[in-house]
């Protein structure tokens, strides 16, 4: 590639807040496409891959993780200011992640239970998505995100088109791949009808129910599904846990909203 073309390559940055690194790893997991991507963009900040760090501004910033500390709350504004497009990746960044379970509990109590010297731990009372703090250009769901969807989002932002990321239910994906419905044919509880597609409906293809790791779909009807989950053997604690995993706050907001809302 000529030096001039190299100099004008768009710049990509990957940032991590409170998270497990799994979504960033999805980028490294792209393997063949990663080499091609590395030729097309200048990866200027990606600590998972390289300790060489370049400064902004960045054409595209991918942000993993939720806001759980005062430091990250400040830092996310810096990232936003340095990024032309900010895309959040994964359940932590888009919904607060599993660490948002603290939102339903007393974080001081958790801290005292877990750490020998709790006074060393500086943390916020809640875990919140990036979009609660700064404007976000696109939210890519999943725990972890899907490799193909990540490449689609990056490709779309690089050429300036809208990413093709459907927000319908997992049922669409099951039916498209020819999976026999685990709820209808086996009586297995499944969150698929209220869960955002994107994983390719992996769990039902292996005979187990969807556990909602992509969070709610665009038009979930949770009150209609809950009686089915109970019928198929979920007791109240199990039901609570099913809805309070990686996207706990998103499903909780949904449950609260659907309590008041009547279909129009």
């Amino acid at each position, binding site marked *: 590639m000529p030096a001039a073309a190299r100099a004008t390559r768009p710049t990509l940055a990957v940032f991590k807040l409170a998270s497990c690194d799994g979504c960033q790893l999805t980028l490294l997991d792209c393997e063949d496409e990663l080499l091609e991507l590395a030729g097309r963009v200048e990866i200027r900040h990606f600590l998972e891959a390289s300790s060489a760090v370049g400064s902004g501004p960045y054409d595209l910033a991918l942000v993993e993780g939720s806001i759980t500390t005062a430091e990250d709350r400040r830092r996310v504004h810096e990232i936003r200011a340095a990024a032309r497009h900010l895309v959040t990746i994964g359940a932590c960044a888009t919904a607060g992640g599993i660490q948002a379970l603290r939102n339903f509990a007393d974080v001081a109590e958790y801290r005292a239970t877990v750490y020998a010297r709790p006074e060393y731990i500086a943390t916020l009372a809640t875990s919140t998505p990036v979009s609660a703090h700064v404007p976000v250009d696109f939210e890519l769901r999943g725990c972890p995100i899907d490799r193909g969807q990540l490449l689609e989002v990056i490709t779309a932002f690089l050429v300036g088109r809208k990413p093709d990321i459907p927000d*319908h239910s997992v049922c669409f994906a099951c039916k498209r791949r020819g999976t026999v*419905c685990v709820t209808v*044919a086996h009586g297995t509880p499944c969150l698929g009808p209220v869960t955002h597609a994107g994983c390719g409906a992996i769990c039902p293809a292996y005979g187990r129910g969807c556990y909602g790791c992509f969070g709610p779909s665009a038009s979930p009807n949770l009150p209609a599904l809950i009686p089915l989950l109970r019928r198929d053997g979920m007791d109240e604690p199990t039901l609570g846990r099913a809805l309070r995993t990686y996207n706990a706050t998103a499903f909780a907001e949904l449950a609260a909203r659907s309590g008041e809302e009547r279909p129009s």
Partner: protein
Amino acid sequence: MKDVRRDAWVLRDDGLAALVRELARDGRQVIGPTVRDGAIVLAEVDDAAQLPHGWGVELAAGRYRLVRREDAMVFAHSAGPQSWKAYLHPQHVRRWTADRNAGGEWTVRGEDEREADAVPAYAFLGVRPCDLRAIAVQGRVLGGGPGADTAYRRRLDRTFIVAVECTDPGATCFCTSMGSGPAVDVHDRGYDLAMTELLDEGGHRFLIRAGSDAGAELLTRLPVEGAAPLTESAARHVVADAAERMGRSMPPVDLHALMAGSMAAERWDDVASRCLTCGNCTMVCPTCFCTTTEDVTDLTGDHAERWQRWDSCFDLDFSQLHGGPVRASGRSRYRQWLTHKLGTWHDQFGESGCVGCGRCIVWCPVGIDITEEAAALAEETGQPENRGSVQAAESVRHARQEGGGRR
């Protein structure tokens, strides 16, 4: 000399192996029912032993169970989780590709029809009469008129269809209400061979007759014997008996008028409170045909593809326009689906979009029942009963007159 075109013949149960073998010998990919993952699904079958011998199903709204039968019937089961549209109208199809060369010039290539020929022609084994009608209905939508989808048309034209009459309808079946079963209509030209499965004192056998020249030719290669009049009457009897055992029925009203007169019904609120808007009903429906467009670019920006994939009127994005979706509520989306299926389909295509297979009832996780919703709307709006069953007759008439879905 056999008058294979006119007469009915008998194929013994071991003759199914010959049928599968001869279809495969013609270079066809044989698709038929087989047991997988606790259901009778459609899949490639290369041996008659893979057919669901002795398997049946128990159906209810939102419930499907595979069960062992006490007999060895092969086709005594009703609509499974997929329909034949999975093969004729696949969920993901590439329409064209575009490539940019070093000089910046674009070359656009449509999916070459010769490539379509490279795909093996199908033989569908075990198409129920409701699904035979569904293939014709979808064929008139996708394969007929000035906007015909030529790739679809070629897939349909190259498919060999072995229809099997229905002798054991499920609890969610209502083909008699829609005039689409359980018998194969002899005036229907949509099949190549039609069979009726019999298991009685006369043994396990199939009454078989040709519906096309290709079917007649294939018959000459099968180990068949002439059918005795008693066998023919036994076959007529089991199918007529099946007509009396439908698990569901549509309310006997003019469904087209009912839908047109129900737009403001309160029942839509009731069904919307139960509807998951998950899209399962449209995906399993053998006539639902809607697709969306997917444009794919690669990282270089020098290669682009356009794909077509199944979409659903339950997807918010389906009616997305500038400013938001036209049908934002579950109420409006369910109403759109039902009024199109039973009502405006008549205005668009001259027949009903429903064939009474019952898949939308079975595969709806919450068990919303199209016949129950239609009955509730009829009751709420006071739609008068129509004893003549006009829509069923109209449907049959159109199916015969309009050639779109014929092969």
